[in-house]
């Protein structure tokens, strides 16, 4: 018994001594003002559930300050702020603010945020269903295309409908490679459409093209994981509202590639990630690690081999069964 007491005393001393060892001081409690043009209840939810790690306004619990917990807390806050810091909100342009909120909301819906380890110890940060609904309703109001758009009263100008590829690039070898060393793949327009998507949140529309290997994988139901050599080209255009209220594809925004090679791209979840923007096909990214941004967005679908798209079934054989029977 006496021995047990001794061990306890030693542990206690070590614990107390540990308390002098603290993580590098970070900015904890600079007040962040409410977001302008954002309803009060949305502000409150964000403050309550996101701000501890995604702003400079942190509400630490007493146990967050104890060594070694404080080290984990400090590193989480550092990572959290790097990904998104709501204290910098006003520095963002309006479309970026909307995109950020949609992104954050989808992280909440996918269950990735707030972190489970965080809500386990800070249950008040957990989002109630009613809060999720409040956020959703608010996001609907800031979508670039509202769910029930009024048919524009001013007719779209006629005659300039035919946009011929006038700025067409003729020599694709001159398109710069991305900083993670991926070269542009000009051939994707000859690929098949694996799916399409209507992004009313940011007013864009996309065709997701798949190369031959990707299409074969779909036909053979080998899509999780996708085989090496499968490539997707997610191509985005602006939504253009026509006089009759329908929407056609307007200006080209960007094309994004995911190139599967489990070995070559082992460090980036088995995929090579690339994006070229605008009519001059400017490679996206400021440094070779820009693909971490792609991965963190695709992380909620890691169980789908990091692919958001649910492909259309492109099985040739299945269809032929019908024709044969006919």
């Amino acid at each position, binding site marked *: 018994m006496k021995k047990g007491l001794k061990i306890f005393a030693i542990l206690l001393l070590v614990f107390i001594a540990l308390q002098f060892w603290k993580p590098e001081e970070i900015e904890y409690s600079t007040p962040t003002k409410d977001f302008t043009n954002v309803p009060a209840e949305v502000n409150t939810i964000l403050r309550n559930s996101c701000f501890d790690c995604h702003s400079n306004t942190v509400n630490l619990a007493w146990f967050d300050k104890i060594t070694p917990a404080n080290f*984990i807390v400090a590193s989480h806050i550092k990572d959290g702020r790097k990904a998104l810091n709501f204290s910098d909100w006003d520095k963002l342009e309006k479309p970026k603010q909307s995109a950020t909120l949609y992104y954050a909301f*989808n992280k909440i819906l996918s269950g990735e945020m707030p972190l489970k380890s965080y809500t386990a110890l800070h249950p008040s940060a957990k989002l109630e269903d009613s809060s999720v609904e409040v956020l959703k309703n608010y996001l609907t109001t800031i979508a670039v295309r509202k769910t029930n758009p009024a048919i524009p009263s001013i007719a779209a100008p006629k005659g300039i409908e*035919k946009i011929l590829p006038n700025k067409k690039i003729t020599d694709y070898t001159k398109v710069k490679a991305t900083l993670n060393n991926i070269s542009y793949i000009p051939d994707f327009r000859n690929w098949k459409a694996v799916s399409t998507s209507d992004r009313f949140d940011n007013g864009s529309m996309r065709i997701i093209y798949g190369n031959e290997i990707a299409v074969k994988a779909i036909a053979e139901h080998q899509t999780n994981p996708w085989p090496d050599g499968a490539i997707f080209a997610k191509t985005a255009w602006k939504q253009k509202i026509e006089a009759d209220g*329908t929407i056609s594809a307007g200006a080209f925004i960007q094309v994004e590639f995911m190139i599967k090679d489990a070995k070559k791209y082992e460090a980036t979840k088995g995929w090579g990630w690339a994006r070229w923007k605008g009519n001059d096909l400017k490679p996206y990214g400021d440094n070779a690690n820009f693909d971490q941004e792609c991965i963190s967005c695709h992380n909620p679908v890691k169980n789908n081999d990091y692919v958001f798209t649910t492909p259309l079934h492109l099985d040739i054989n299945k269809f032929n069964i019908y024709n044969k029977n006919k």
Partner: protein
Amino acid sequence: MKPIHSIIIVLIIILSGCNRNNENNINEKASVSALDALPENPLLLSPITFSINPNKATMSTLYGNKIAFQHAKIKADSSYPNGAVLYEVTWKQKADSLWYGANIPDKIISVEKIQFTGNTAPKYELYAGHPLKKVSSNDENKRTTIILSKGMVETP
């Protein structure tokens, strides 16, 4: 990565087991089925352009066979050559369960085929219903004009 993080991660992996999801996620409902009475599977042709009708919550993709696709690539007019075949496939939209803010194809509600043969006017056919069956259309001419007016969606 800090050692404490590695320990936590290893513990989580051990505790949760390696329950990898091996399901193939394919949008079967939005695909052509063996029961659909179509002359061929239009989804296997080349996408020329696409559109959305927010009032009806539908989205359409215009596909072309090789001849139609080659024509659309170089000319933005409706004078498709002989042998050109176009398919306008229209889906009901559904909310993307993986991204709030997006709609993706749900069921196919119609397939419209336009075929260029000889010197006669292009032949229009409409397939609708579940499964898709050839049905007659009241606005053949209007639909033909609309579909033929769609040019290739532009990429640099």
